[in-house]
């Protein structure tokens, strides 16, 4: 499996602003997933985008995928203090039948009230 690398490592914004996080990966993927982790807690699945999709929305979340650049971005609009967490991308390759997830260091997002 392959690991995604998130950028930036840390992001601090004011409540109400938008937050954009990026993910890069190295080889072809079947899908790419974004997860959130609140401090010391389990990961929560946010959104999955398939390799044949370019954009996907879920509530205040917008994910884009550019397979030619091997990158994805996660946009959180109108951020809230409760969005404070670490965000991880997990690219899943075609040969990953078991769907094991490999996580990078994540983006630590702090939303100040």
């Amino acid at each position, binding site marked *: 499996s392959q690991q995604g690398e998130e950028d930036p490592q840390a992001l601090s914004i004011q409540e109400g602003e938008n937050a954009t996080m990026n993910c890069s990966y190295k080889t072809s993927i079947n899908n790419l997933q974004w997860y959130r982790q609140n401090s010391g*807690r389990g990961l929560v699945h946010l959104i*999955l985008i398939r390799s044949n999709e370019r954009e996907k929305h879920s509530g205040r979340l917008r994910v884009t995928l550019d397979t030619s650049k091997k990158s994805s971005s996660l946009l959180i609009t109108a951020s809230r203090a409760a969005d404070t967490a670490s965000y991880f991308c997990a690219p899943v390759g075609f040969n990953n039948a*078991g*769907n094991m*997830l490999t996580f990078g260091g*994540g983006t630590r997002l702090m939303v100040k009230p």
Partner: protein
Amino acid sequence: EPEVTQTPSHQVTQMGQEVILRCVPISNHLYFYWYRQILGQKVEFLVSFYNNEISEKSEIFDDQFSVERPDGSNFTLKIRSTKLEDSAMYFCASRLNQETQYFGPGTRLLVL
């Protein structure tokens, strides 16, 4: 909404002792996973389990580790002889057929 549950939430043990971490995956799920996260580090894959056998395991998952699904609901991770470096948060996850994995809240293991 169904959830993955894990017990205990915290476990403290002495080096060399055996520990069993327990997970109850979502009831109709078919694929089960263990991950761990050493404090301040990345979440790392340990093992996946399907159809009553290990389907994949990482280099971390050596002979000291084993997994079992002893009945229709529990999924356990056993560490036979714990080392200091096994101190970490251990997460169980499960999924049905779709790709989304659902994670439990974790067990924080401290080896003294």
